[in-house]
């Protein structure tokens, strides 16, 4: 029902307080013509793409390392997974303190003689979006790690032994044996992280508010700003519909592509 009503309001002009007026595709035409909306779409795609690649690469690396027989592997797995369990908003507020002009990062850089690297990380349009990426990757790499660990533990030990007997190096073993067998885990992890990346909201709101100007604006923050700040509920609902369609199309496309790849392997 909420999806239905949201879909309906996307075609209306509504301030949330009085009656909604049907306006057809006007909201969507306005989105197409709005530079901020286009920037939000581009930022969303850029952030999601970078997040999928980075979080899966780091998650896989962690999983490969922690799949070994280390005495501390269980403790380390818990440590790396812990950020996933923390509220994204609370985590982002802590990172905000770190990235503040007078925050921990700039202070450490000054103290080690690298003050030339000091930046207004959250207030500089060239770094704002990537700062959000750092927080996202830090928080969710543990999720990818867990998914890959599950996949790794389903690979029979005999496969590794056979590869070793055949003279495969560690890297060759990973590339030619482990990764193909991890295809289902890659599918799941890539799909989940893509959805997380496209829907990003809490971190953006807490760190930059979508600014400076629209340098870190995303579709999620536009839904929020248009609806709850400017009181343009119909226009905000149109953004929500656009975001939903985007997530569905991209996630399904990726899922189909990766499933086909699994079958080929």
């Amino acid at each position, binding site marked *: 029902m909420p999806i239905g009503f949201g879909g309906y309001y996307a075609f209306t002009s509504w301030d949330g307080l009085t009656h909604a007026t049907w306006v057809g595709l006007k909201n969507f035409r306005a989105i197409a013509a709005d530079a901020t909306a286009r920037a939000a779409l581009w930022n969303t795609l850029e952030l999601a793409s970078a997040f999928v690649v980075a979080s899966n690469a780091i998650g896989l690396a962690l999983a490969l390392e922690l799949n070994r027989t280390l005495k501390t592997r269980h403790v380390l797995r818990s440590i790396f997974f812990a950020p996933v369990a923390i509220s994204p908003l609370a985590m982002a507020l802590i990172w905000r303190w770190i990235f503040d*002009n007078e925050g921990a990062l700039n202070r450490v850089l000054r103290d080690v003689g690298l003050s030339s690297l000091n930046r207004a*990380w959250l207030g500089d349009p060239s770094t704002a979006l990537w700062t959000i990426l750092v927080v996202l990757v830090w928080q969710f790499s543990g999720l990818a790690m867990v998914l890959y660990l599950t996949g790794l533990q389903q690979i029979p030990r005999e496969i590794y032994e056979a590869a070793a007997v055949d003279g495969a190096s560690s890297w060759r073993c990973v590339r030619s044996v482990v990764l193909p067998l991890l295809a289902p885990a890659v599918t799941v992890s890539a799909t989940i992280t893509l959805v997380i990346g496209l829907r990003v909201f809490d971190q953006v709101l807490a760190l930059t508010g979508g600014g400076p100007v629209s340098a870190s604006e995303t579709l999620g923050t536009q839904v929020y700003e248009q609806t709850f700040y400017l009181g343009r509920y119909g226009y905000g609902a149109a953004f929500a519909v656009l975001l939903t369609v985007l997530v569905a199309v991209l996630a399904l496309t990726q899922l189909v592509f990766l499933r086909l790849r699994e079958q080929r392997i």
Partner: protein
Amino acid sequence: MTRSRMGGGHGARCALAAVAFVCVLAPISATARAVSKESVSLTFLAYVTYQPAYAAVIASFERAHPDITVDVTYTPTIQSLYQLETTQLAAGNATDLLTTYPGCGTPISICRLARSGQLAPMLRKAWARRLDPRVLEYSKVGPSLFAFEPAVVFDGLLTNDTMFKKLGLRFPQTFAQLLAFCAKARAAGTIPVLMPAQGSNTLQQLVADIALTTVYAKDKTWGRKLREGKATFEGAPGWHQALAEIVRMNQAGCFQPGPAATTGPAGDSMFAQGQTLAYSMTTAHKGAIDAAKPAFTYTQRPFPAAERSAQNVVLLQLAPALSVNAHASKQSQAAAQQFVDFLARPAEGAVFARISGGLSEAQLRAAKFPGYLSSFLPLYTQGRYGINPIETWWNAAVGNALTTYGTGLLTGQESIDDVLEAMDAAWKLGPD
């Protein structure tokens, strides 16, 4: 014989029983009456900057009205106040007491909420007759009054007077002197002017403050021309000049690094810690700054926007107003109106104004300015002040465009023309 004796004795026993019954029942009834007199718990959504002032007034109110408690939720930023209140109103679970803004220029403006039936009218208020008519009109929609302004504040620069003295600096009186001041402050290793541009209306207010000198003082009909479609922001040289002053201040190094990432509460903290010589802010933040116990004296001074000091016009900002939710229960509405009436008393208004850093309506009319606002008195008595023009704009999108795109002037993402074109585009969306 027996019947009469029995009747007479029986009657006396009955009378005695009746008296005893009444004597036992009366206190029980009184207790029951006392229990059945309901206590009311009012909910209230307000901005954290006013927490010290509201805490004091609410404590007094609750002592005077033991049957009413006021439960306040404070939002950390103005934007979160806008968002939370509009969401709650749309969902039908808004607080009994609402923070509203005068005029039409914000998402929680009185005109917007009153026209959509969200605000209860304030009828037959004796205190309304004491208010300055120019202030009162922003609390009305048509003939009906919908809000009470607990204080008015001035926009300008809060100055760390202790540091000024220590560095041997004088407060600038013209814009050219301000730029020179910035250079000297930078050389002394301190931040000249702190500008919290994220999640706050500070930049918007400063631009509006400058525009009072560069636009509205030069053409007193400009606001009317804008409404009639005979003027645009892009077409007004005064608006170009106002934004150019922000650009020049930024280029002269007046602001701290990364102003686009500094929030209002962070700015309050930085100023209270003595990290900056001046702070672009209204005195509405005085309570929050005092709560941090700064180790220096400070005052507020008019922003030197003009080429000559005699041309400066100061911005009078109406503090967030208090309104009553029209959809609250009758009991809550009645209690809420009582709270508003209590706050409207001159003594309570003076307490609120003293703690929050503004002037009560009574103080404004009597021109009784406290020491830290004494710089504004000459301009006020000469009539060189104006109500914040943003409060006269007919929708919230224009102010939002000024805030959002204006921040781009600080980061180099936007030009002055970009900002003014965005404001014109927002104006064309029409009235809220």
